[in-house]
């Protein structure tokens, strides 16, 4: 007996571990989206979401304002702080060109000299030389430049130089008069940035409340009506005997595959002809039609698996089909009804296409998906932060539905009634 208990617990450990592994695997991409929904558009494309909780070294261009420039021996001198008057940070590197934003370390001077070089054949040429050296010491010129020409150190004339300290204090020296703000470059660790801005944009944009209510107005009837209709049809297909049943079942499966796009134009034409036009009634009918095949298919399959003896004994007791259906089959089918309800709810909730076609295009009848796609995402739909936030807002309600419905997927409901 002990032995069996042992395998049982190791098995249950295996179950726990594999479920954890699966869940983590499934969750990683979604976590990426969740994290991204708290970041702005710039940050999303700059660093991976997995790096977002950490400080990242980033390079900045700083264009300090030109006040307090002093003149020194033909050079302009500008002093200040790279992080601005109020800002603070820690300089990890700095430079004077975008190409090498961290050419020097804090405590150094980074300078550009104009210098003459002597080429191997003896001709003299001038070139630009950039190098870093400690503050207070003299620049140590290399013997030769990149092309192997000898550097004539004596001819070196300072063009511009930048020195910076860890706290961001800098001193910029440039030959002649400074007319435009210089572009200085600094690298520093930037702390993680998260904000609720995306959510704020989505939730508090004009008309989102109306869109939210519209979505519910579309979704709830468009979930319940097909379930009701399908439940009756599924019962008929599962437990009533009549000619053509097999054909009808086949047809339902066949209709599952009909692409919605085929139906849009003829149906809207029809709606316009009978006077429904673009309206809520129209969209409920459309969703009902499009959702029915799956509903009938799933429910019929579930109902046909119900124990034959209960239903037959009820019939023997004189119950009509309607009574059997409402009193026995419907309560027993609750798990299937609930699971289909979840799917239909999700599908209608996330639907954009049907809503666009069957609802009027004015903003009073926008549902959330239309509002987000056409109003918030901006031209040509490129804002990933908003998209991520919108995805999470639209997940929230269906997930809540899933949680509530999960209670109805309970074990024993069926087993209990068999006894």
């Amino acid at each position, binding site marked *: 007996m002990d032995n069996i208990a042992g395998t049982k617990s190791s098995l249950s450990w295996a179950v726990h571990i594999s*479920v954890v592994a*699966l869940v983590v695997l499934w969750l990683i991409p979604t976590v990426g989206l969740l994290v991204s929904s708290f970041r702005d558009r710039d940050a999303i494309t700059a660093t991976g979401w997995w790096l977002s909780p950490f400080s990242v070294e980033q390079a900045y261009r700083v264009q300090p304002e030109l006040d307090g420039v002093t003149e020194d021996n033909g050079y302009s001198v500008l002093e200040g702080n790279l992080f601005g008057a109020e800002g603070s940070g820690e300089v990890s590197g700095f430079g004077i060109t975008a190409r090498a934003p961290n050419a020097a370390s804090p405590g150094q001077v980074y300078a550009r000299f104009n210098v003459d070089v002597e080429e191997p054949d003896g001709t003299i040429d001038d070139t630009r030389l950039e190098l870093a050296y400690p503050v207070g010491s003299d620049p140590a010129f290399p013997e030769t430049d990149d092309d192997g020409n000898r550097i004539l150190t004596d001819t070196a004339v300072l063009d511009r130089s930048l020195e910076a300290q860890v706290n961001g204090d800098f001193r910029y020296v440039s030959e002649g008069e400074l007319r435009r703000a210089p572009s200085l470059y600094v690298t520093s660790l930037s702390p993680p940035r998260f904000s609720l801005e995306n959510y704020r944009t989505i939730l508090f944009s004009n008309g989102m409340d*109306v869109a939210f209510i519209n979505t519910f107005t579309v979704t709830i*009837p468009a979930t319940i009506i097909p379930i009701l209709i399908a439940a009756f049809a599924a019962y008929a297909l599962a437990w009533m005997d009549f000619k053509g049943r097999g054909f009808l079942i086949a047809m339902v499966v066949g209709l599952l595959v009909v692409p919605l796009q085929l139906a849009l134009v003829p149906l809207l034409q029809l709606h316009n002809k009978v006077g429904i036009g673009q309206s809520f009634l129209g969209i409920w009918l459309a969703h009902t039609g499009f959702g029915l095949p799956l509903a009938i298919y*799933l429910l019929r399959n579930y109902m046909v698996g119900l124990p034959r003896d209960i239903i037959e004994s009820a019939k023997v007791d004189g119950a009509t089909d309607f009574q059997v259906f409402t009193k026995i089959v419907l309560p027993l089918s609750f798990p299937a009804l609930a699971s289909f309800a979840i799917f239909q709810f999700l599908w209608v909730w996330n639907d954009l296409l049907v809503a666009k076609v069957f609802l009027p295009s004015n903003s009073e009848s926008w549902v959330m998906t239309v509002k987000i796609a056409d109003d918030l995402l901006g031209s040509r739909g490129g804002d990933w932060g908003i998209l991520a936030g919108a995805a999470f807002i639209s997940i929230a309600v269906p997930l809540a539905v899933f949680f509530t419905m999960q209670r109805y*997927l309970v074990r024993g409901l069926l087993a209990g009634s068999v006894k």
Partner: protein
Amino acid sequence: MSPLVQGLLTIFIGVGGCVGYFFLSNLILDKVIFPTRSENPGLNINRANLVRPWLFLFPAMAALGLYLVYPVIGSFWRSLYNRSGDEFIGLGNYMTMFSDDGFQVALFNNFLWVLFVPASATFLGLLVAQLTDRLKWGNIAKSLIFMPMAISFVGASLIWKFVYANNADIGLINALRDFFGAEEPLDVLQVRFWNNFFLMFILIWIQTGFAMVILSAALRGIPEETVEAAIIDGANPFQVFFKIKVPQIMGTIVVVWTTITILVLKVFDIVYTMTGGNFGTEILPSYMMSYMFRDDGRATAVAFVIMIIVLPVMIWNIRQARAEMR
């Protein structure tokens, strides 16, 4: 009237109308047309039972006929006409389509999808459903696996951009490659043939939740006695699962498999947003969408090819249904 009140009222009328139809129509059938409390109750009950299936089926059949059958017939007719719809060209659209390289690629890829996606999603769904069945935190685990179902396809495509992106700073795969010393980032969506599988993962990731929910409900519908009996007979957990549980929910597995297969033949969004059908990843639904509303003759022809592909699945299901009824 505030939109909220309007909304509630419409919900009430919509749902109420539906409940009303079934209740009243059955009431009228039983009490007015064929009253059971008449001189001939037996005959009336039989007559009523002849009519009742159609009473049950009528709303569904009407909606299906109007919303799906009617457009399908119209579309079939349309597929026999040329691009602008003014010239009857018989099977011309089908002929040009079959000789199109792009169509052949799409057909082959779709074949891969149909083989791979439903099998994987159903298997994983069943696995999760079984593993979480008696777990204390099973409901939480299930909700997390279910989450991708709730994300729109556009959102899902964005999520997977963060995985596949051809840039070690954005895409997880390339970040990992970078971490393990790869020098150049790789655009996995441009790796011919295998890129199809990368796209399939997305749909599997989404649909496992669907399979899990349905199969989980089915597993819970299995009478406890059968399982208990097997355990008493000394069956180990694997035997219980494969010999007792799986056969009992075979019907549901077929349903899940079928539903996902059909979905595979309908979902164009993933391919559309991730690769636009380039790099040899076109599948029939995305191929169809590239013609839809532009060359409807061709688009509808593709739709019918898709429907023909589903025929074996339909036949399989009819057989299954027949077997159940006996």
